[in-house]
């Protein structure tokens, strides 16, 4: 029976299943324990859960990339590598949390359960092969984080953060759903890869018979059932893409809404308004989780969406193509993020704005990826950047959580005064995180920024060679990116100045939490090691991109004799001139 779930289906979603199981176990442990007892051990339980999930993702490394669960999910290099990233971020978050929660009188097990469920949603989201699964996973991730943001019930700021995040997130979800509906209306399918293929074929189908093309699509693998045609009559459900007039605005509107919703989640300017309040109002460990795992998941899924569904030349580089959108988003995010961060007096808000700036740098790479002929391998720089960024951010938030005592939040720059001498290890770690965020060698952040800008320069070179319009603008984006990261150095160094060169204004005693120390050390060591030996991680992120299943590189159709059809992308480009 075709409806049966196969063992490979279960195996490929093992990281997700493990996280959800651990989440449920943590919930039950929480309710069957007497009130008033410490819940700190649940942090270890969750960390074990994350380690198990990461281990299962690692075990799956040998499995060949393929569609599972009836074309609803992918198991491929990309989903596995990003699963490792989410698990790391989640585990470190759980480690820095217990003492902080106890200090704030919020020591409840639901925290860990929500983190586990949310991370499960992320893993599902980046492996989704279908818009429906994608949206469900997005909600699983988001709803858990809404609750987490307002987790400290006694705090007004946290309630405000939670409410703002919830309202904005709910709007973004609604926008996403509307966009998905419009894309479905224009293409007749919710399958990401099928959308991408149909759009390309449709664009070139002036001379090609759609039915023939679809029979070719089905030869390409498991996409047959998911592709947008009626399996009984063989009719193409998609409204005429190439020749049509009515559905093109629909498609562009749909894509725009989907992208807007995605950049809402990653917090790119001008969709960043919620971000500083949410990051700084939420408890520090939650801020760490939102800034690292949630943002990484949103970026990874944006990569997947663009690479699979919307990588058609016309959609990227056409008069209404998304490359222009990401170009301006990148520019604005780098500018606003860096400039506004200078004015902050709260370290948390500074980190929030710096996270907006990092969004901008990563969007530079996404712009480069979609520019010109389009090179999906350039997306590897985003994956690498996410790793570097996650360690730096979780570590910095973790240190703030580590220093926070009951009733006294460590948030202002002046709170850090002189701590570099009082807690040498902590000072070194914070210095590392700041250097990494600023992109100064020998830290991970330097290699990451280098990769991102390198990607843009490569795309510029390819663009010049192919005679694409506006290649110089891409170079201008790189230059402004570098200039803005110089601006960024100011406020990152300000933290170090306060750590070492200012006299303390008040007594700050660290909470001295063991697990938090482990978590922060892991981040610091990772930041340094990745900076010194970036090779393995670079390979891993390149692998993630090159092994992304269903990615749309333009050439799909093979003639009977095995010779590939002319490059559709080039065909379209010539057609559009």
């Amino acid at each position, binding site marked *: 029976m075709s409806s049966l779930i196969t063992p490979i289906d279960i195996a490929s979603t093992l990281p997700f299943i493990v996280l959800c199981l651990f989440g449920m176990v943590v919930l039950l442990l929480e*309710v069957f324990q007497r009130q008033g007892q410490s819940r700190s051990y649940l942090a270890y339980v969750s960390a074990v859960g994350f380690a198990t999930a990461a281990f299962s993702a690692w075990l799956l490394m040998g499995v060949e990339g393929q569609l599972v669960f009836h074309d609803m999910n992918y198991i491929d290099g990309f989903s596995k590598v990003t699963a490792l990233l989410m698990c790391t971020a989640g585990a470190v978050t759980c480690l820095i949390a217990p003492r902080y929660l106890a200090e704030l009188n919020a020591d409840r097990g639901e925290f860990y359960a929500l983190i586990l469920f949310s991370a499960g949603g992320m893993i599902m989201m980046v492996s989704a092969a279908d818009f429906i699964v994608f949206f469900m996973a997005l909600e699983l991730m988001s709803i858990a984080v809404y609750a987490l943001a307002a987790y400290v019930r006694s705090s007004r700021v946290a309630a405000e953060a939670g409410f703002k995040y919830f309202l904005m997130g709910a709007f973004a979800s609604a926008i996403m759903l509307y966009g998905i509906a419009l894309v479905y209306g224009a293409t007749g399918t919710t399958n990401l890869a099928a959308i991408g293929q149909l759009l390309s074929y449709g664009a070139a189908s002036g001379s090609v018979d759609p039915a023939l093309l679809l029979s070719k699509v089905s030869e390409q693998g498991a996409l047959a059932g998911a592709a947008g045609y009626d399996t009984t009559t063989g009719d193409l459900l998609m409204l005429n893409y190439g020749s049509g007039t009515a559905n093109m605005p629909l498609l562009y509107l749909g894509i725009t809404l989907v992208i807007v919703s995605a950049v809402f989640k990653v917090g790119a300017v001008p969709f960043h308004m919620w971000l500083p309040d949410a990051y700084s109002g939420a408890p520090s460990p939650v801020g760490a989780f939102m800034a690292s795992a949630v943002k990484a998941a949103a970026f990874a899924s944006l990569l997947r969406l663009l690479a699979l569904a919307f990588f058609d030349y016309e959609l990227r580089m056409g008069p209404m193509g998304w490359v222009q959108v990401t170009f301006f988003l990148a520019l604005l995010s780098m500018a606003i993020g860096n400039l506004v961060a200078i004015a902050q007096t709260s370290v948390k808000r500074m980190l929030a704005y710096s996270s907006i700036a990092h969004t901008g740098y990563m969007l530079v790479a996404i712009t480069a990826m979609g520019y010109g002929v389009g090179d999906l391998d350039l997306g590897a720089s985003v994956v690498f950047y996410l790793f570097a960024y996650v360690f730096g951010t979780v570590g910095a938030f973790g240190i703030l959580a580590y220093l926070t005592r009951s009733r006294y939040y460590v948030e202002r720059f002046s709170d850090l005064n002189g701590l570099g001498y009082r807690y040498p290890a902590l000072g070194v770690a914070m210095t590392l995180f700041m250097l990494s965020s600023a992109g100064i060698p020998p830290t991970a952040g330097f290699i990451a920024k280098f990769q991102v800008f390198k990607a843009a320069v490569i795309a510029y070179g390819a663009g010049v060679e192919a005679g694409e319009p506006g290649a110089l603008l891409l170079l201008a984006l790189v230059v402004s990116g570098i200039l803005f990261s110089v601006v960024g150095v100011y406020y990152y160094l300000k933290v170090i100045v306060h750590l070492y060169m200012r006299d303390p204004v008040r007594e700050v005693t660290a909470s001295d939490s063991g697990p938090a120390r482990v978590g922060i050390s892991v981040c610091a060591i990772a930041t340094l090691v990745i900076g010194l030996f970036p090779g393995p991680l670079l390979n891993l992120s390149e692998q993630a991109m090159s092994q992304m299943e269903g990615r749309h590189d333009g050439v799909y159709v093979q003639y009977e004799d095995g010779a590939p059809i002319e490059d559709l992308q080039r065909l379209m480009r010539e057609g559009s001139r």
Partner: protein
Amino acid sequence: MIDYVAILMLGLVGVAMCATVVALSVLFGPRNPSRWKGTAYESGSEPFGDARIRLDVKYYMIAISFIMFDVEAVFLLPWAVVAKDYGAYGFVVAMVFVTILVVGLVYEWQKGGLEWD
């Protein structure tokens, strides 16, 4: 496209009928305004207070429990109809689903979500 014409017609006829009735009563109806006729009418009594009041959180707990059983019924009913065809496989899948919901129920029960006071 032709399918939508009927819907469009329905909408137009509906609007036209409403407009006609309102227009007729405006044109031919008697009009004797008074102070009492001008007041807001709310189930026969004078409206007072603000509509935005705080509701007890208990109502939300009940609503959440309702959703849990609601979703359970929505998915289990179709399964029950074809349970024979799906055999052991269908049973296992349905039980996995029920187990997840039961974890939620146990959690809510233990947290005191089912107690009114």
